[in-house]
């Protein structure tokens, strides 16, 4: 770790002021990804602005047709939330599949989507459910939020405040996780709202993506069998020690079907 100045503001305005005053400032949420990369000296910053003291950023509330989750809400709170469990059980399942107990008690939804790890779970949750990201200055659709490997549409100093998840008719989550880290090797969130289907895959490319062929097939027939014969190309998929691209392509098909079965079981 390289030296930095630690800040712990108590309000969003104070956090914004400190970030804008710094030439090289970074907000700190749960620290589950940022701190390890700093520890390994892969990342450094002059000012670390800790958002954990801003109470207004955490919390879950049921709105009209949606569930709003504050950026600093821990994964464990999402797992245990009656609002989420009732409205979007697949989202609670997603949160419950992240890391281990310690990670879920510490990590936050805002931290996860801002870090935009290619194998993080929440990006699939946002894209697969058609969520909207509310920042201190605007609302960004999930389709526009994730832009690349560890990259998002956020501008310098922009802070995520909350995420709005529309309540779907059905949604399902299926994940094949890495045994050590619990990061997704491949995970799929699928949702059905009205007649439209969203199916998002994480873990398989630089960033989360939808699979239009599968969505179209499911829009006509929301069943696992509707995707028979739809193969996702392995071209451009991630390769690492734990999975090569052909294995990942295969897993997308398997996990997509399991996600649909999960949605139908709820």
């Amino acid at each position: 770790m390289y030296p930095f100045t630690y800040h712990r503001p108590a309000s969003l305005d104070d956090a914004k002021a400190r970030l804008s005053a710094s030439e090289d400032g970074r907000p700190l949420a749960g620290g589950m990804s940022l701190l390890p990369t700093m520890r390994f000296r892969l990342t450094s910053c002059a000012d670390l602005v800790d958002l954990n003291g801003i109470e207004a950023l955490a919390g879950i509330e049921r709105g009209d047709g949606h569930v709003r989750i504050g950026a600093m809400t821990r994964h464990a709170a999402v797992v245990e939330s009656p609002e989420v469990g009732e409205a979007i059980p697949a989202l609670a399942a997603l949160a419950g599949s992240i890391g281990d107990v310690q990670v879920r008690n510490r990590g936050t939804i805002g931290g996860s989507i801002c870090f935009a790890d290619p194998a993080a779970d929440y990006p699939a949750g946002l894209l697969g459910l058609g969520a909207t990201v509310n920042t201190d200055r605007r609302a960004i659709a999930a389709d526009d939020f994730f832009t690349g490997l560890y990259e998002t549409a956020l501008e310098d100093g922009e802070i995520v405040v909350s995420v709005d998840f529309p309540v779907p008719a059905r949604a399902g989550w299926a994940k094949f996780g890495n045994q050590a880290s619990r990061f997704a090797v491949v995970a799929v969130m699928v949702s059905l709202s009205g007649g439209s289907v969203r199916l998002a895959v994480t873990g398989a490319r630089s960033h989360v993506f939808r699979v239009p062929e599968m969505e179209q097939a499911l829009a006509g027939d929301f069943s696992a069998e509707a995707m028979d014969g739809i193969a996702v190309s392995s071209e451009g998929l991630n390769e690492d020690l734990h999975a090569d691209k052909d294995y990942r392509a295969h897993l997308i098909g398997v996990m997509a079907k399991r996600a649909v079965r999960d949605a139908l079981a709820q």
Partner: protein
Amino acid sequence: MTRERHYIPESRQREKPKSKYFAIGHSMKRVEDTRLLTGSGTYADDVSLPNMAHAAVLRSPHAHARIVSIDKSKAEALPGVLCVMTGAEAAEVTGPCADFSSPPTTQHCIAVDKVRHVGETVAAVVAESRYIAEDACELIEVEYDPLPAVVDLEEAVTSTGDAVLHPERGDTNVAHHRVIDFGTVDEDFAQADLVIERRLRWPRSGGTPIETVGATAHYDRGTGKFTIHANTSMYNYVGWLIAVSLKVEPHRLNIVPTDAGGSFGSKLFCHKVCTLAGTLARAAGRPVKYLEDRIDNMTSGDAHGSDRVYDAKLALKRDGTMLSMRLKVIDDYGAYFQYGVGQHGNAMAQVTGPYKINSVQVDLTAVFTNKCQQGAYRGFGSEVGNFVIERLVDAACEELDIDPIEMRRQNLIEQDQFPYIMPTGNMYDSGNYQAVLDEALGMIDYDGWRQKQAEAREEGRYIGIGISTCQERSVFSATEFWMWNPNETPGFTLSSSPESVSVNIDPTGKAFITLNAPFWGNSPETMAVQVLAEKLEMDPSDISVGYADSDKGFNSSGPGGSRFTVMIAGAVSGAADVIKEKMLRVASHMLEADPSDLEFRNGSIGVQGVPGKEKTLAEVALHAHYFRLDLPEDHDLTSGIDAAYVYDHPVTTMPSEDRTDLGIFYPIVGHMCHIPVVEVDVETGKVDFLDYVAVHDCGTMVNPMTLAGHVRGGTVNGIGSALYEHFHYDENGQLQNALLSDYLHPTPMETPVDIRVGHVETPSPFTEYGIKGGGEGGRMGAPPAIAAAVEDALKPLGVKVDSLPLTPKVLRGMIREAEANGG
């Protein structure tokens, strides 16, 4: 001395197994728990000395390269840096690291001239803080001249020239090659109706404890003496070799043990880190702490495990009778050779398993490659042998269409055949293998699971049941380290492997035990307390335990090779006999009775048959400590009650000159049967456990609870070896998974909810109370059982398991291939 072949020394057992014990056999809570669970342990990083500085190392980015130049000027100029040392500078004051190979293999604590694996230390920095030391490492400029990287173990056999790691040992990377026939191999194969052949691959994994290796060294210029605090073991056995490396006389090095935060074998000696810390402390003129970080430990911890390919053959009669084996093995030892082929000496202890196999040929080739060198890891090579023979037996069952259980029943050594001399000359002291098998089958409901398996297959689910019946050799003796060496270069042919202890009775009659081996993650204090409590019929809570440094310690090999419980029981028992004799003498004067008429009874010494006529241990102890003039004028009756005792290995013999008889070297042999039930998700390749039974016979159990903990922990360790763990080097010799985020361990989520443990007790006729070791057993039995279970699950697809680990990616690949072949 020449002895007849297969000579078995007379048993030195003094304490026979009993039907009822005072303290042994009770599942008392661990003595260590309160200290460790309340954060009161002292681990390597908890050591802090006045004026202490901190070290960090610069690691080689190359697998194999000449060091052309090192510019350390920028690092030295960084404020807070005390000294920067290169290998050449270190070598001026410090000799090579301890090494047991023959001919010797030179390794320095900082590489000199050449680096031989990624992560090898190229330079070290001492600074006011670890942060500054790491900053300074980044400022050191090293110019390398890359050499060919040798990564593949079979290619290593033929490499020459620049690809040779240690040219002084010859123009080859073959570190060792020898073929030995143990028994009448050719004749036995000639009688065979069938020879099973399998090519089997055991992957490189390692102990990877949460706490890495660390040492804090202080060099006293006034006395010329080093003090090194470290999480090492064997410091009272071969720790003096670190003094040799530091070029001081052994009495000028005191090694102080810290608690070890896990080892699994990997901290057996840790000589390199101790040598490095000592070298830096002397150079800096300050106490220096060096603690490996995770990458240091994974890339350069000197403790990778076996990495072998076998061409293995098992000769049988048509009726399933096993006759003989031929094992051709290449083992990738990495860049250095600290224990020679000790891991293969070890495997010879039980190479033919629990079966009546008459002979075995072993063709052993050890090679150097540009990887971290091998060290000790739970099983020390024998776990691989168990995997190999069990895979061959399962293959034979398939070929001959014999049920795996019937095949084992037919070939297991019978109860009336012990002590049993197996083909390599090692002795199996005792056992009841059929009873272990019966117990395991009863616990798992074997027939019930076969029924469920058939039903599941109808539903398209793949459930498999595996079985392993394996040996669990315990109580190593030192001959295993050199028995493979050629006669012309025998090396250091040590044959002592003792354990020692001292016991002091305080003036109130309570006891303090000093161990001469460290806390290593096991339960050494609990074991010593239970045995002493048994001997003196003393309340275990009246006994406490400490650890001797090497200034005060006696010759003690320490834990390793599943020996500590057996050996400390021998040492404590011997010391307690001295104590008892002294207490009886004192009590006899106090009670005016002959010592032979006295007995220990529940905290007192009394006259046999005369209730009430007794003195408490406290009264006797107080008398012995402070009332000398009340006692007779016997010159050998001195004040106080203290004993030190060195217990030599209970039963060992020397190998024959030609090594066709390795002698008795690992004779206290337990047995186990593991039966996992798994389900394979054929779409993803993931393996889940539905049930798991592990039955072990470790002789008399000192503490069934801690033994069960060893069995469960070892089994999880074995699950890691079978399904997940693998140091993955790419073709350039780069370690791809030097962090625990990529080196996969089984976590509670990959572990059976309940590993159901059963016990059978067949006491050893050679050890005190009949105890056998059980520290490594789980890892020695789980991998072959899991391999068998996965193969059984995938039988409809025809998948064969010849290599580990069976990660989801690997297993899915095998399933895909089988499906493509119309499986």
